């Protein structure tokens, strides 16, 4: 037998499959969006193909600058809260028995099956004046009058965290459960108290996973457009809400597309920065 090239398990053309999918479902729609964003708006309801910067120029105003800032701050806050809650939770979870871990993960996964609509309306009921926790607090004597907690920034962040939390746990769970438990014990024997071992050994060793969970929740909540309308006031409307508003209700597709392009660029930049920070600190 002469030496023949070793056959890999899959034929080479199979590698084209993901490329084709990526082109069909990502690059083509993105190209259309780019093209629409420089198209000319036809006030009668649609757009004409052309090349003009009007939509982008309109976006560069104080109003939309503020909207952008609100969108990013809301998502950053939600991501920070989710990771701050999900990380200790996951560490705790990974120390539990195998059966308990499976059950809790199944419950978390089933929370993912709830649609944003159900979560939004449930929370707005729970936080309302007539049927919500305000009533409960009044009944307990904590507050003088039943009050509503929605719409508010608090309600919005709560909703976003409800959605983001299971994702954060799912991203954190594999690396956390793989962490050598003897590393923590070693720190304990060498004199580190519980909190010190947690922040000095567990957190730095899982920096990559923490950054990953943060990015995922950030990007995920950045695209949310239903919850800000259901649970937030109009000043909490995120860019996604305004994109929907422009594209669907104002029939201004070019402007909606321009905002989408901008949102995507900002999100990419932030993700790039975060992963860069995660990598550098991890290797330092």
């Amino acid at each position, binding site marked *: 037998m002469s030496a023949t090239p070793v056959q890999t398990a899959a034929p080479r053309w199979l590698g084209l499959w993901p490329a084709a999918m990526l082109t069909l479902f990502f690059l083509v729609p993105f190209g259309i969006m780019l093209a629409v964003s420089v198209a000319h708006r036809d006030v009668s309801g649609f757009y004409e193909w052309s090349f003009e910067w009007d939509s982008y120029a309109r976006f560069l105003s104080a109003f939309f600058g503020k909207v952008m800032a609100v969108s990013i701050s809301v998502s950053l806050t939600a991501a920070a809260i989710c990771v701050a809650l999900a990380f200790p939770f996951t560490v705790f979870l990974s120390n539990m028995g195998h059966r308990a871990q499976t059950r809790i993960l199944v419950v978390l996964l089933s929370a993912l099956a709830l649609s944003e609509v159900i979560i939004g309306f449930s929370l707005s009921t729970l936080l309302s004046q007539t049927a919500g926790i305000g009533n409960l607090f009044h009944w307990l004597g904590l507050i003088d009058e039943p009050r509503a907690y929605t719409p508010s920034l608090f309600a919005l962040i709560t909703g976003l965290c409800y959605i983001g939390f299971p994702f954060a746990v799912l991203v954190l769970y594999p690396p956390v459960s793989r962490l050598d438990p003897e590393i923590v014990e070693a720190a304990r*024997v060498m*004199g*580190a108290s519980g909190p010190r071992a947690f922040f000095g050994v567990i957190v*730095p060793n899982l920096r990559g996973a923490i950054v990953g969970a943060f990015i995922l929740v950030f990007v995920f909540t950045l695209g949310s457009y239903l919850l800000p309308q259901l649970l937030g006031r109009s000043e909490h409307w995120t860019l996604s809400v305004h994109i929907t508003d422009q594209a669907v209700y104002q029939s201004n597709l070019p402007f909606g597309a321009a905002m989408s392009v901008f949102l995507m660029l900002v999100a990419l930049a932030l993700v790039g920065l975060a992963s860069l920070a995660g990598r550098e600190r991890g290797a330092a």
Partner: protein
Amino acid sequence: MTELRIDSLSKDFGTFRALDSVSLDIPNGKFVCLLGPSGCGKTTLLRLIAGLETPTDGRVYVGGADQTEVPTHKRGMGMVFQSLALFPHLDVADNIAYPLAIRGVDKATRRARAEELLELVQLPGLGSRRIHQLSGGQRQRVAIARGLSINPQVFLLDEPLSALDASLREHMQIELRQIQQRLGVTTVVVTHDQKEALTMADLVIVMKDGVIQQAGAPMELYHTPANAFVAGFIGTTNLMPCTVADGVVSVLGHAFPITEGDRIAITSGEAQLSVRPEHVLLGAPDEGLPAEVSFLRDLGESLHVLMRVGDQEITAHLAPGHGHDLVTGQTVGIRFRDGEKVVVQ
């Protein structure tokens, strides 16, 4: 004064009793090996000493002070874990000096101490390396250095060499023993490898099913095992059921007179006879217990002769130059060297 004292320590995991009322006195500066098969409770005992487990019953004293209620991080012990548990996010020097950093020692002193310990474990100048840049043996040394960085009263090691290949392992056994002798630190090592225990220890504690079977110097355990389990676990031996009566040990229908030097714990009735392979002698079939040679294994340094008497297997190790006329299937007569018979329960 006794450095480390274990007083009727027990540990239950649910309904399983991992450690059953174990008591031990370990003198200052001794090297102790906890030896036994997996599940014998040796690791549990080590973890109880470190405070990583809470005893169901009993106390732990270090230098006369009761440590039972003291939390792990305040016991001031050094420990090397089976997985080594080095911190991947710190460099070698920071790993070694981690216990010092916890105690608020300044950076310059920490670096100096780390370098001093690196010289002790023969890795000078590697302080700024990352853990993943080290070989298995180097990581082993770093873990040992880290365990010693605060000059602990007690140095604990849980199967520290099990990840190394055989030749490096033997080398590290000798080196670990030399380091311990130089520092004089009271050391407790968990191992399932009896050769490792014999190489390093002043005192070997043989455990089984959560109970200490025998504690003693290595050669004491080798020559005078307390029971059949210890006889079989320390070194290799032939264990045969026997009956003892009137100065005679009867094995498989053949009577061997008890001679001076034989260790006879049971003077009458049913017992077990243990004879090391190097003390099994072969002669003509009528000179002893007749046995059939079933296999010959020539290792150059010695010739292993495997024999059968009915269902009982008996092995003899012959010195070089002996037994070259033996053939498989031949019948020989087995005798035991005078003073080398050990009768135990």
